[in-house]
Protein backbone atom coordinates (compact mmCIF):
# COMPACT_ATOMS: atom_id res chain seq x y z
CA UNK A 1 0.00 0.00 0.00
CA UNK A 2 2.80 2.34 0.95
CA UNK A 3 6.34 1.50 -0.03
CA UNK A 4 9.56 3.34 0.68
CA UNK A 5 12.40 2.51 -1.65
CA UNK A 6 15.84 3.83 -0.67
CA UNK A 7 14.27 7.03 0.60
CA UNK A 8 16.59 9.67 2.05
CA UNK A 9 15.96 13.20 3.24
CA UNK A 10 18.69 15.74 3.73
CA UNK A 11 18.50 19.20 5.24
CA UNK A 12 21.67 20.90 4.08
CA UNK A 13 24.31 18.40 5.07
CA UNK A 14 22.25 16.70 7.73
CA UNK A 15 20.70 13.44 6.61
CA UNK A 16 17.63 12.99 8.78
CA UNK A 17 16.21 9.97 6.97
CA UNK A 18 18.75 7.53 5.65
CA UNK A 19 18.05 5.14 2.84
CA UNK A 20 14.76 3.97 4.25
CA UNK A 21 13.17 0.83 2.92
CA UNK A 22 9.79 -0.11 4.26
CA UNK A 23 6.65 -1.71 2.98
CA UNK A 24 3.36 -1.05 4.69
CA UNK A 25 0.66 -3.50 3.76
CA UNK A 26 -2.98 -2.85 3.12
CA UNK A 27 -5.04 -2.84 6.30
CA UNK A 28 -1.97 -2.73 8.48
CA UNK A 29 -1.52 -0.37 11.42
CA UNK A 30 2.16 0.45 11.60
CA UNK A 31 3.60 2.63 14.33
CA UNK A 32 6.77 4.60 13.79
CA UNK A 33 8.52 4.99 17.10
CA UNK A 34 11.87 6.23 18.28
CA UNK A 35 13.61 9.00 20.19
CA UNK A 36 12.87 12.62 19.47
CA UNK A 37 14.41 13.83 16.23
CA UNK A 38 14.90 10.36 14.77
CA UNK A 39 12.91 11.22 11.65
CA UNK A 40 9.42 9.85 12.35
CA UNK A 41 7.52 12.96 11.34
CA UNK A 42 9.74 13.48 8.32
CA UNK A 43 9.07 9.91 7.21
CA UNK A 44 5.34 10.36 7.71
CA UNK A 45 5.09 13.66 5.88
CA UNK A 46 6.94 12.32 2.89
CA UNK A 47 3.97 10.01 2.29
CA UNK A 48 1.57 12.90 1.62
CA UNK A 49 4.29 15.06 0.11
CA UNK A 50 4.28 17.70 2.81
CA UNK A 51 7.99 16.93 2.66
CA UNK A 52 9.74 15.83 -0.51
CA UNK A 53 12.47 13.21 -0.24
CA UNK A 54 15.96 14.13 -1.38
CA UNK A 55 16.32 10.78 -3.08
CA UNK A 56 14.50 7.49 -3.41
CA UNK A 57 10.93 6.70 -4.31
CA UNK A 58 7.71 6.33 -2.39
CA UNK A 59 4.88 4.31 -3.85
CA UNK A 60 1.28 4.64 -2.75
CA UNK A 61 -0.99 2.03 -4.27
CA UNK A 62 1.90 0.98 -6.43
CA UNK A 63 2.23 4.43 -7.96
CA UNK A 64 5.19 6.72 -7.61
CA UNK A 65 3.78 9.69 -5.68
CA UNK A 66 6.10 12.13 -7.44
CA UNK A 67 4.05 11.51 -10.54
CA UNK A 68 0.79 12.40 -8.78
CA UNK A 69 -0.69 15.81 -8.13
CA UNK A 70 0.03 16.44 -4.43
CA UNK A 71 -3.40 17.97 -3.84
CA UNK A 72 -5.20 14.95 -5.26
CA UNK A 73 -2.85 12.59 -3.44
CA UNK A 74 -3.58 14.27 -0.09
CA UNK A 75 -7.33 14.16 -0.55
CA UNK A 76 -7.01 10.40 -0.67
CA UNK A 77 -4.94 10.21 2.51
CA UNK A 78 -6.32 11.05 5.94
CA UNK A 79 -4.11 13.20 8.13
CA UNK A 80 -4.28 13.68 11.89
CA UNK A 81 -1.80 15.80 13.83
CA UNK A 82 -0.91 16.09 17.49
CA UNK A 83 -2.05 19.72 17.72
CA UNK A 84 -5.46 18.48 16.57
CA UNK A 85 -5.69 21.19 13.93
CA UNK A 86 -9.45 21.60 13.81
CA UNK A 87 -10.35 24.83 12.02
CA UNK A 88 -11.69 27.22 14.68
CA UNK A 89 -13.80 29.12 12.15
CA UNK A 90 -15.76 26.01 11.19
CA UNK A 91 -18.35 24.04 13.11
CA UNK A 92 -17.73 20.41 13.99
CA UNK A 93 -19.86 19.36 11.03
CA UNK A 94 -17.94 21.63 8.68
CA UNK A 95 -14.65 20.39 10.04
CA UNK A 96 -15.57 16.76 9.55
CA UNK A 97 -16.89 17.38 6.06
CA UNK A 98 -14.04 19.60 4.93
CA UNK A 99 -12.40 17.08 2.60
CA UNK A 100 -15.84 16.17 1.28
CA UNK A 101 -16.33 19.81 0.45
CA UNK A 102 -13.02 19.87 -1.39
CA UNK A 103 -14.21 16.83 -3.31
CA UNK A 104 -17.47 18.55 -4.20
CA UNK A 105 -19.91 16.55 -2.09
CA UNK A 106 -23.51 17.68 -1.95
CA UNK A 107 -24.83 19.17 1.31
CA UNK A 108 -26.98 16.09 1.92
CA UNK A 109 -24.14 13.69 1.39
CA UNK A 110 -21.88 15.67 3.72
CA UNK A 111 -24.56 15.91 6.42
CA UNK A 112 -25.28 12.20 6.26
CA UNK A 113 -21.61 11.35 6.53
CA UNK A 114 -21.10 13.68 9.48
CA UNK A 115 -23.99 12.08 11.30
CA UNK A 116 -22.78 8.59 10.58
CA UNK A 117 -19.28 9.34 11.81
CA UNK A 118 -20.37 11.10 15.00
CA UNK A 119 -22.58 8.16 15.84
CA UNK A 120 -19.67 5.82 15.30
CA UNK A 121 -17.86 7.38 18.27
CA UNK A 122 -21.04 7.77 20.30
CA UNK A 123 -21.25 11.54 20.03
CA UNK A 124 -24.81 12.72 19.58
CA UNK A 125 -24.86 14.46 16.18
CA UNK A 126 -27.66 16.82 17.14
CA UNK A 127 -25.78 18.25 20.08
CA UNK A 128 -22.28 18.38 18.57
CA UNK A 129 -22.72 19.14 14.89
CA UNK A 130 -23.14 22.88 15.23
CA UNK A 131 -20.63 23.47 17.97
CA UNK A 132 -17.26 25.04 17.38
CA UNK A 133 -14.01 23.25 18.24
CA UNK A 134 -13.33 25.42 21.27
CA UNK A 135 -16.64 24.31 22.70
CA UNK A 136 -15.35 20.73 22.97
CA UNK A 137 -12.90 19.09 25.36
CA UNK A 138 -9.44 18.13 24.12
CA UNK A 139 -10.39 14.47 23.87
CA UNK A 140 -13.58 15.25 21.97
CA UNK A 141 -11.65 17.54 19.65
CA UNK A 142 -9.20 14.84 18.75
CA UNK A 143 -12.04 12.36 18.17
CA UNK A 144 -13.31 14.87 15.62
CA UNK A 145 -9.76 15.14 14.24
CA UNK A 146 -9.81 11.38 13.64
CA UNK A 147 -13.31 11.48 12.15
CA UNK A 148 -12.27 14.28 9.83
CA UNK A 149 -9.46 12.08 8.55
CA UNK A 150 -11.89 9.20 8.03
CA UNK A 151 -14.65 11.24 6.43
CA UNK A 152 -13.78 10.93 2.77
CA UNK A 153 -13.09 7.25 3.33
CA UNK A 154 -9.40 7.29 2.44
CA UNK A 155 -7.58 3.96 2.33
CA UNK A 156 -4.57 5.40 4.08
CA UNK A 157 -4.45 7.48 7.24
CA UNK A 158 -1.39 9.23 8.62
CA UNK A 159 -1.35 10.10 12.31
CA UNK A 160 1.44 12.08 13.94
CA UNK A 161 1.29 11.57 17.70
CA UNK A 162 -2.46 12.10 17.58
CA UNK A 163 -3.00 11.33 21.24
CA UNK A 164 0.25 12.80 22.53
CA UNK A 165 -1.30 15.95 23.98
CA UNK A 166 -4.13 14.22 25.80
CA UNK A 167 -4.27 13.18 29.43
CA UNK A 168 -3.49 9.51 30.08
CA UNK A 169 -7.07 8.42 30.65
CA UNK A 170 -8.41 10.10 27.53
CA UNK A 171 -5.44 8.78 25.59
CA UNK A 172 -6.25 5.20 26.59
CA UNK A 173 -9.87 5.71 25.62
CA UNK A 174 -8.98 7.02 22.20
CA UNK A 175 -6.48 4.24 21.66
CA UNK A 176 -9.25 1.79 22.43
CA UNK A 177 -11.61 3.54 20.06
CA UNK A 178 -9.00 3.61 17.32
CA UNK A 179 -8.48 -0.12 17.72
CA UNK A 180 -12.20 -0.71 17.44
CA UNK A 181 -12.51 1.53 14.39
CA UNK A 182 -9.57 -0.22 12.81
CA UNK A 183 -11.13 -3.61 13.43
CA UNK A 184 -14.19 -2.47 11.47
CA UNK A 185 -12.61 -0.35 8.80
CA UNK A 186 -9.26 -2.01 8.05
CA UNK A 187 -7.50 1.18 7.05
CA UNK A 188 -3.83 1.32 6.31
CA UNK A 189 -2.60 3.48 9.17
CA UNK A 190 0.83 4.95 9.75
CA UNK A 191 0.92 6.12 13.33
CA UNK A 192 3.80 8.07 14.83
CA UNK A 193 4.25 7.86 18.57
CA UNK A 194 6.75 8.40 21.35
CA UNK A 195 5.00 6.03 23.64
CA UNK A 196 5.98 2.37 23.61
CA UNK A 197 2.88 1.33 25.55
CA UNK A 198 0.75 2.98 22.90
CA UNK A 199 2.67 1.29 20.10
CA UNK A 200 2.40 -2.11 21.77
CA UNK A 201 -1.28 -1.63 22.32
CA UNK A 202 -2.39 -0.60 18.86
CA UNK A 203 0.25 -1.69 16.36
CA UNK A 204 0.17 -4.59 13.98
CA UNK A 205 3.78 -3.81 13.36
CA UNK A 206 6.22 -1.54 15.13
CA UNK A 207 8.94 0.25 13.20
CA UNK A 208 11.62 1.41 15.58
CA UNK A 209 13.81 4.20 14.26
CA UNK A 210 17.03 5.81 15.37
CA UNK A 211 18.95 8.62 13.66
CA UNK A 212 16.93 8.32 10.50
CA UNK A 213 17.28 4.59 10.17
CA UNK A 214 15.04 1.65 10.90
CA UNK A 215 16.51 -0.39 13.72
CA UNK A 216 13.81 -3.03 13.81
CA UNK A 217 10.47 -3.55 12.16
CA UNK A 218 8.46 -6.36 13.66
CA UNK A 219 5.21 -7.28 15.38
CA UNK A 220 4.88 -6.16 19.00
CA UNK A 221 5.26 -9.76 20.09
CA UNK A 222 8.43 -10.29 18.08
CA UNK A 223 9.91 -7.06 19.32
CA UNK A 224 9.21 -7.99 22.91
CA UNK A 225 10.61 -11.45 22.51
CA UNK A 226 13.53 -10.71 20.24
CA UNK A 227 14.68 -7.14 20.45
CA UNK A 228 17.21 -6.74 17.63
CA UNK A 229 19.82 -5.10 19.84
CA UNK A 230 20.44 -3.33 23.11
CA UNK A 231 18.99 -0.09 21.79
CA UNK A 232 15.68 -1.76 21.05
CA UNK A 233 15.73 -3.56 24.38
CA UNK A 234 16.42 -0.38 26.30
CA UNK A 235 13.81 1.50 24.30
CA UNK A 236 11.26 -1.14 25.12
CA UNK A 237 12.29 -1.02 28.74
CA UNK A 238 13.34 -3.96 30.92
CA UNK A 239 10.05 -4.45 32.62
CA UNK A 240 8.20 -4.90 29.34
CA UNK A 241 10.55 -7.49 27.90
CA UNK A 242 8.98 -10.87 27.52
CA UNK A 243 11.79 -13.34 27.72
CA UNK A 244 11.63 -16.92 26.68
CA UNK A 245 13.43 -19.72 28.53
CA UNK A 246 15.81 -19.66 25.58
CA UNK A 247 17.19 -16.32 26.65
CA UNK A 248 17.29 -16.58 30.41
CA UNK A 249 20.59 -17.92 31.67
CA UNK A 250 20.77 -20.36 34.53
CA UNK A 251 22.85 -18.00 36.64
CA UNK A 252 19.97 -15.51 36.55
CA UNK A 253 17.64 -17.93 38.29
CA UNK A 254 19.94 -20.15 40.38
CA UNK A 255 20.27 -20.15 44.14
CA UNK A 256 23.64 -18.50 44.62
CA UNK A 257 24.48 -19.84 48.03
CA UNK A 258 23.89 -23.59 47.96
CA UNK A 259 24.77 -25.47 51.12
CA UNK A 260 28.16 -27.09 50.61
CA UNK A 261 30.62 -29.16 52.60
CA UNK A 262 34.31 -29.76 52.07
CA UNK A 263 35.17 -33.35 51.08
CA UNK A 264 37.40 -33.94 54.15
CA UNK A 265 34.74 -33.20 56.79
CA UNK A 266 33.16 -35.86 58.95
CA UNK A 267 29.75 -37.38 58.37
CA UNK A 268 28.35 -36.12 61.67
CA UNK A 269 29.13 -32.61 60.64
CA UNK A 270 27.38 -33.20 57.31
CA UNK A 271 24.30 -34.39 59.12
CA UNK A 272 24.37 -31.40 61.43
CA UNK A 273 24.70 -29.01 58.48
CA UNK A 274 21.76 -30.62 56.70
CA UNK A 275 19.61 -30.33 59.77
CA UNK A 276 20.55 -26.69 60.27
CA UNK A 277 19.92 -25.69 56.68
CA UNK A 278 16.90 -27.97 56.30
CA UNK A 279 18.18 -29.66 53.15
CA UNK A 280 18.48 -33.32 52.24
CA UNK A 281 21.70 -33.13 50.30
CA UNK A 282 24.94 -31.21 50.25
CA UNK A 283 27.29 -30.24 47.47
CA UNK A 284 30.70 -31.65 48.18
CA UNK A 285 33.55 -29.36 47.17
CA UNK A 286 37.30 -29.21 47.48
CA UNK A 287 39.40 -26.46 49.01
CA UNK A 288 39.15 -24.41 45.82
CA UNK A 289 35.39 -24.64 45.62
CA UNK A 290 35.39 -27.18 42.80
CA UNK A 291 32.46 -29.53 42.73
CA UNK A 292 33.39 -33.09 43.59
CA UNK A 293 30.04 -34.71 44.10
CA UNK A 294 26.93 -34.71 46.14
CA UNK A 295 26.00 -36.38 49.35
CA UNK A 296 22.42 -37.10 50.39
CA UNK A 297 20.97 -37.65 53.81
CA UNK A 298 20.51 -41.34 52.99
CA UNK A 299 24.17 -41.70 52.05
CA UNK A 300 25.21 -40.12 55.30
CA UNK A 301 22.88 -42.16 57.51
CA UNK A 302 23.89 -45.50 56.03
CA UNK A 303 27.59 -44.66 56.29
CA UNK A 304 27.41 -43.08 59.72
CA UNK A 305 28.42 -46.28 61.53
CA UNK A 306 31.30 -46.94 59.21
CA UNK A 307 32.73 -43.51 59.79
CA UNK A 308 35.05 -41.68 57.42
CA UNK A 309 34.77 -38.41 55.57
CA UNK A 310 32.04 -36.96 53.45
CA UNK A 311 34.20 -37.48 50.39
CA UNK A 312 34.15 -41.28 50.93
CA UNK A 313 30.37 -41.54 50.88
CA UNK A 314 29.62 -38.89 48.27
CA UNK A 315 28.23 -39.92 44.93
CA UNK A 316 30.56 -39.01 42.10
CA UNK A 317 30.15 -35.86 40.07
CA UNK A 318 26.42 -35.40 39.64
CA UNK A 319 24.78 -34.08 36.53
CA UNK A 320 25.33 -30.33 36.35
CA UNK A 321 24.80 -27.36 34.05
CA UNK A 322 27.34 -24.75 33.11
CA UNK A 323 26.94 -21.05 33.61
CA UNK A 324 25.81 -19.55 30.32
CA UNK A 325 23.44 -22.40 29.61
CA UNK A 326 19.80 -21.45 29.33
CA UNK A 327 16.92 -22.26 31.57
CA UNK A 328 15.37 -24.28 28.78
CA UNK A 329 18.42 -26.54 28.73
CA UNK A 330 18.35 -26.85 32.49
CA UNK A 331 14.71 -27.86 32.47
CA UNK A 332 15.42 -30.33 29.71
CA UNK A 333 18.30 -31.94 31.62
CA UNK A 334 16.26 -32.15 34.79
CA UNK A 335 13.45 -33.86 32.99
CA UNK A 336 15.69 -36.22 31.10
CA UNK A 337 17.63 -37.40 34.13
CA UNK A 338 14.71 -37.08 36.44
CA UNK A 339 16.62 -35.11 39.04
CA UNK A 340 15.19 -32.54 41.43
CA UNK A 341 18.13 -30.19 41.32
CA UNK A 342 21.10 -29.21 39.23
CA UNK A 343 24.37 -27.72 40.42
CA UNK A 344 25.60 -24.84 38.30
CA UNK A 345 29.33 -24.85 37.60
CA UNK A 346 31.68 -22.78 35.54
CA UNK A 347 34.16 -24.21 33.08
CA UNK A 348 36.72 -24.62 35.86
CA UNK A 349 34.26 -26.93 37.58
CA UNK A 350 33.73 -24.46 40.38
CA UNK A 351 30.36 -24.55 42.02
CA UNK A 352 28.47 -21.33 41.33
CA UNK A 353 24.98 -22.14 42.40
CA UNK A 354 22.10 -24.53 42.38
CA UNK A 355 18.89 -24.89 40.50
CA UNK A 356 16.05 -26.78 42.12
CA UNK A 357 12.57 -27.50 40.83
CA UNK A 358 11.11 -25.27 43.51
CA UNK A 359 13.39 -22.36 42.71
CA UNK A 360 12.66 -22.73 39.00
CA UNK A 361 8.93 -22.44 39.40
CA UNK A 362 9.13 -19.39 41.62
CA UNK A 363 11.77 -17.55 39.70
CA UNK A 364 10.58 -18.41 36.23
CA UNK A 365 7.23 -16.82 36.86
CA UNK A 366 9.01 -13.65 37.91
CA UNK A 367 11.29 -13.48 34.93
CA UNK A 368 9.11 -14.83 32.18
CA UNK A 369 5.69 -13.63 33.17
CA UNK A 370 6.08 -10.63 35.44
CA UNK A 371 2.41 -9.78 34.99
CA UNK A 372 1.38 -13.19 36.14
CA UNK A 373 3.45 -13.05 39.30
CA UNK A 374 2.22 -9.63 40.25
CA UNK A 375 -1.41 -10.56 39.75
CA UNK A 376 -0.67 -13.67 41.76
CA UNK A 377 0.51 -11.46 44.60
CA UNK A 378 -2.67 -9.48 44.43
CA UNK A 379 -4.62 -12.68 44.53
CA UNK A 380 -2.87 -14.04 47.60
CA UNK A 381 -3.08 -10.79 49.48
CA UNK A 382 -6.81 -10.48 48.87
CA UNK A 383 -7.44 -14.05 49.93
CA UNK A 384 -5.48 -13.38 53.07
CA UNK A 385 -7.68 -10.43 53.81
CA UNK A 386 -10.77 -12.47 53.17
CA UNK A 387 -9.82 -15.22 55.57
Amino acid sequence: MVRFENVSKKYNQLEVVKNLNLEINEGELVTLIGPSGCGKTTTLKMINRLIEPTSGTIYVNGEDIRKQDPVQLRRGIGYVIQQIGLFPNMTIAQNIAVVGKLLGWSKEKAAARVEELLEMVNMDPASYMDRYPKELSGGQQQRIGVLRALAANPKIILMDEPFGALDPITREQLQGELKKLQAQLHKTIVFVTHDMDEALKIADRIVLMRDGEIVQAATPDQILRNPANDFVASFIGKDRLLRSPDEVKVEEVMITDPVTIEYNRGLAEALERMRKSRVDSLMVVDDLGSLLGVVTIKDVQSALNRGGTVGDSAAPHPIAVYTGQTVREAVFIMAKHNVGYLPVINDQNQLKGLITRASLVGILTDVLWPDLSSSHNVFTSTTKEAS
Partner: protein
Amino acid sequence: MLETFNKVYTFIANDPEQFLSAIQDHILLLVLVPVSLAILVAVPLGILASRFRWLEKIVLSITSILQTIPSLALLALMIVLGMGIGPRPAITALFLYSLLPILRNTFIGIKNVDPFLKEAATGMGMTNMQRLRMVELPIAFSVIMAGIRTATVICIGTGTLAAYVGAGGLGVFIVRGLQLFRNYLLLVGAVPAAILALLADYLLGKLEYFLIPRGLRGEQ
Protein backbone atom coordinates in the same frame (compact mmCIF):
# COMPACT_ATOMS: atom_id res chain seq x y z
CA MET B 1 -19.35 78.58 27.19
CA LEU B 2 -23.09 78.47 26.89
CA GLU B 3 -22.83 81.35 24.49
CA THR B 4 -20.50 79.40 22.28
CA PHE B 5 -22.92 76.46 22.12
CA ASN B 6 -25.68 78.87 21.25
CA LYS B 7 -23.61 80.17 18.37
CA VAL B 8 -22.88 76.67 17.17
CA TYR B 9 -26.55 75.80 17.33
CA THR B 10 -27.63 78.95 15.52
CA PHE B 11 -25.02 78.41 12.84
CA ILE B 12 -26.20 74.88 12.13
CA ALA B 13 -29.89 75.74 12.40
CA ASN B 14 -29.52 78.66 10.00
CA ASP B 15 -28.14 76.51 7.27
CA PRO B 16 -28.60 72.80 8.10
CA GLU B 17 -28.17 71.90 4.44
CA GLN B 18 -24.61 73.16 4.40
CA PHE B 19 -23.80 71.30 7.62
CA LEU B 20 -25.31 68.00 6.47
CA SER B 21 -23.66 68.12 3.08
CA ALA B 22 -20.31 68.73 4.77
CA ILE B 23 -20.88 65.60 6.89
CA GLN B 24 -21.94 63.67 3.82
CA ASP B 25 -18.84 64.77 1.92
CA HIS B 26 -16.72 63.86 4.88
CA ILE B 27 -18.14 60.37 5.17
CA LEU B 28 -18.33 59.60 1.48
CA LEU B 29 -15.35 61.33 -0.07
CA LEU B 30 -12.93 61.43 2.81
CA VAL B 31 -13.67 58.08 4.48
CA LEU B 32 -15.63 55.59 2.40
CA VAL B 33 -13.80 56.18 -0.88
CA PRO B 34 -10.21 56.16 0.41
CA VAL B 35 -10.80 53.32 2.88
CA SER B 36 -12.55 51.18 0.27
CA LEU B 37 -9.78 51.78 -2.21
CA ALA B 38 -7.22 50.99 0.47
CA ILE B 39 -9.00 47.73 1.30
CA LEU B 40 -8.99 46.78 -2.37
CA VAL B 41 -5.27 47.37 -2.60
CA ALA B 42 -3.96 46.56 0.86
CA VAL B 43 -5.72 43.24 1.51
CA PRO B 44 -4.41 41.53 -1.64
CA LEU B 45 -1.02 43.12 -1.10
CA GLY B 46 -0.99 41.92 2.51
CA ILE B 47 -1.87 38.43 1.35
CA LEU B 48 0.90 38.49 -1.22
CA ALA B 49 3.34 39.82 1.34
CA SER B 50 2.45 36.91 3.63
CA ARG B 51 3.26 34.52 0.79
CA PHE B 52 6.47 36.03 -0.54
CA ARG B 53 9.20 37.05 1.77
CA TRP B 54 10.87 39.48 -0.64
CA LEU B 55 7.62 41.37 -1.09
CA GLU B 56 7.03 41.52 2.64
CA LYS B 57 10.05 43.78 3.25
CA ILE B 58 9.42 46.12 0.34
CA VAL B 59 5.73 46.61 0.91
CA LEU B 60 5.93 47.07 4.65
CA SER B 61 8.76 49.58 4.52
CA ILE B 62 7.15 51.71 1.81
CA THR B 63 3.88 51.94 3.70
CA SER B 64 5.63 52.72 6.98
CA ILE B 65 7.50 55.56 5.31
CA LEU B 66 4.22 56.93 3.92
CA GLN B 67 2.81 56.85 7.42
CA THR B 68 5.62 58.99 8.81
CA ILE B 69 5.01 61.90 6.43
CA PRO B 70 2.95 64.54 8.31
CA SER B 71 -0.62 64.75 7.08
CA LEU B 72 -0.47 68.31 5.89
CA ALA B 73 2.79 67.72 4.11
CA LEU B 74 1.31 64.73 2.33
CA LEU B 75 -1.65 66.80 1.22
CA ALA B 76 0.64 69.55 0.01
CA LEU B 77 2.75 66.94 -1.76
CA MET B 78 -0.29 65.78 -3.70
CA ILE B 79 -0.79 69.28 -5.02
CA VAL B 80 2.87 69.61 -5.87
CA LEU B 81 2.68 66.29 -7.69
CA GLY B 82 0.13 67.85 -9.98
CA MET B 83 -3.13 66.63 -8.54
CA GLY B 84 -4.45 70.12 -8.32
CA ILE B 85 -7.00 71.22 -5.80
CA GLY B 86 -10.23 69.52 -4.74
CA PRO B 87 -11.19 66.03 -3.51
CA ARG B 88 -8.65 64.20 -5.64
CA PRO B 89 -5.44 65.02 -3.75
CA ALA B 90 -7.29 64.54 -0.46
CA ILE B 91 -8.65 61.15 -1.41
CA THR B 92 -5.26 60.07 -2.65
CA ALA B 93 -3.50 61.17 0.52
CA LEU B 94 -6.10 59.51 2.76
CA PHE B 95 -5.93 56.37 0.67
CA LEU B 96 -2.17 56.25 1.17
CA TYR B 97 -2.64 56.77 4.90
CA SER B 98 -5.12 53.93 5.10
CA LEU B 99 -2.85 51.48 3.36
CA LEU B 100 -0.51 50.78 6.23
CA PRO B 101 -2.92 49.74 8.98
CA ILE B 102 -4.91 47.52 6.64
CA LEU B 103 -1.91 46.05 4.91
CA ARG B 104 0.02 45.45 8.10
CA ASN B 105 -2.94 43.83 9.81
CA THR B 106 -3.74 41.63 6.84
CA PHE B 107 -0.15 40.51 6.72
CA ILE B 108 0.11 39.90 10.45
CA GLY B 109 -3.32 38.30 10.66
CA ILE B 110 -2.41 35.73 8.03
CA LYS B 111 1.13 35.21 9.28
CA ASN B 112 -0.18 34.55 12.76
CA VAL B 113 -2.52 31.75 11.76
CA ASP B 114 -1.26 28.72 13.64
CA PRO B 115 1.25 26.95 11.37
CA PHE B 116 -0.26 23.62 12.40
CA LEU B 117 -3.62 24.72 11.04
CA LYS B 118 -1.99 25.69 7.77
CA GLU B 119 -0.26 22.36 7.62
CA ALA B 120 -3.45 20.50 8.47
CA ALA B 121 -5.22 22.39 5.68
CA THR B 122 -2.54 21.60 3.13
CA GLY B 123 -2.16 18.04 4.36
CA MET B 124 -5.85 17.51 3.86
CA GLY B 125 -5.64 18.47 0.21
CA MET B 126 -6.52 22.14 0.09
CA THR B 127 -4.95 24.15 -2.71
CA ASN B 128 -3.18 27.36 -1.78
CA MET B 129 -6.26 29.40 -2.68
CA GLN B 130 -8.63 27.11 -0.81
CA ARG B 131 -6.48 27.32 2.26
CA LEU B 132 -6.51 31.10 2.02
CA ARG B 133 -10.25 31.33 1.53
CA MET B 134 -11.42 28.60 3.90
CA VAL B 135 -8.88 28.90 6.69
CA GLU B 136 -6.46 31.82 6.69
CA LEU B 137 -8.73 34.73 5.77
CA PRO B 138 -11.57 33.71 8.09
CA ILE B 139 -9.13 33.34 10.98
CA ALA B 140 -7.31 36.58 10.15
CA PHE B 141 -10.62 38.40 9.65
CA SER B 142 -10.84 40.13 13.01
CA VAL B 143 -7.25 41.36 12.77
CA ILE B 144 -7.91 42.71 9.26
CA MET B 145 -11.06 44.36 10.55
CA ALA B 146 -9.07 46.04 13.29
CA GLY B 147 -6.84 47.51 10.59
CA ILE B 148 -9.87 48.78 8.69
CA ARG B 149 -11.22 50.37 11.86
CA THR B 150 -7.92 52.12 12.48
CA ALA B 151 -7.84 53.36 8.87
CA THR B 152 -11.40 54.65 9.15
CA VAL B 153 -10.68 56.59 12.32
CA ILE B 154 -7.50 58.02 10.80
CA CYS B 155 -9.44 59.15 7.72
CA ILE B 156 -12.19 60.81 9.74
CA GLY B 157 -9.61 62.73 11.76
CA THR B 158 -7.11 63.55 9.05
CA GLY B 159 -9.99 64.29 6.68
CA THR B 160 -10.62 67.52 8.55
CA LEU B 161 -7.37 68.80 7.06
CA ALA B 162 -8.61 68.09 3.53
CA ALA B 163 -10.42 71.40 3.51
CA TYR B 164 -7.03 73.08 3.08
CA VAL B 165 -6.82 71.60 -0.42
CA GLY B 166 -10.41 72.39 -1.16
CA ALA B 167 -11.82 68.94 -0.66
CA GLY B 168 -14.70 69.96 1.55
CA GLY B 169 -15.91 67.97 4.51
CA LEU B 170 -16.16 69.00 8.14
CA GLY B 171 -12.74 70.61 7.93
CA VAL B 172 -14.31 73.47 6.01
CA PHE B 173 -15.74 74.89 9.25
CA ILE B 174 -12.46 74.50 11.05
CA VAL B 175 -10.48 76.27 8.34
CA ARG B 176 -13.03 79.04 8.15
CA GLY B 177 -13.10 79.42 11.92
CA LEU B 178 -9.33 79.73 12.04
CA GLN B 179 -9.32 82.29 9.23
CA LEU B 180 -12.11 84.39 10.73
CA PHE B 181 -11.06 83.89 14.37
CA ARG B 182 -14.46 82.42 15.15
CA ASN B 183 -13.86 79.73 17.73
CA TYR B 184 -17.38 78.31 17.64
CA LEU B 185 -16.82 77.38 14.00
CA LEU B 186 -13.96 75.14 15.11
CA LEU B 187 -16.48 73.25 17.21
CA VAL B 188 -18.92 72.93 14.33
CA GLY B 189 -16.23 70.99 12.50
CA ALA B 190 -14.40 69.19 15.30
CA VAL B 191 -17.21 67.86 17.47
CA PRO B 192 -19.11 66.06 14.68
CA ALA B 193 -15.80 64.64 13.42
CA ALA B 194 -15.03 63.26 16.87
CA ILE B 195 -18.53 61.80 17.22
CA LEU B 196 -18.24 60.33 13.74
CA ALA B 197 -14.98 58.64 14.63
CA LEU B 198 -16.41 57.05 17.78
CA LEU B 199 -19.59 56.00 15.99
CA ALA B 200 -17.72 54.48 13.06
CA ASP B 201 -15.46 52.51 15.36
CA TYR B 202 -18.43 51.25 17.34
CA LEU B 203 -20.44 50.27 14.27
CA LEU B 204 -17.52 48.51 12.63
CA GLY B 205 -16.98 46.63 15.89
CA LYS B 206 -20.60 45.52 15.80
CA LEU B 207 -20.32 44.52 12.18
CA GLU B 208 -17.23 42.50 12.90
CA TYR B 209 -18.98 40.70 15.73
CA PHE B 210 -21.83 39.66 13.51
CA LEU B 211 -19.64 38.58 10.64
CA ILE B 212 -17.25 36.52 12.68
CA PRO B 213 -18.13 32.88 13.36
CA ARG B 214 -18.89 32.04 16.99
CA GLY B 215 -15.88 29.75 17.11
CA LEU B 216 -13.54 32.72 16.71
CA ARG B 217 -15.23 35.19 19.00
CA GLY B 218 -13.47 36.20 22.14
CA GLU B 219 -10.07 35.40 20.72
CA GLN B 220 -8.04 38.42 19.89
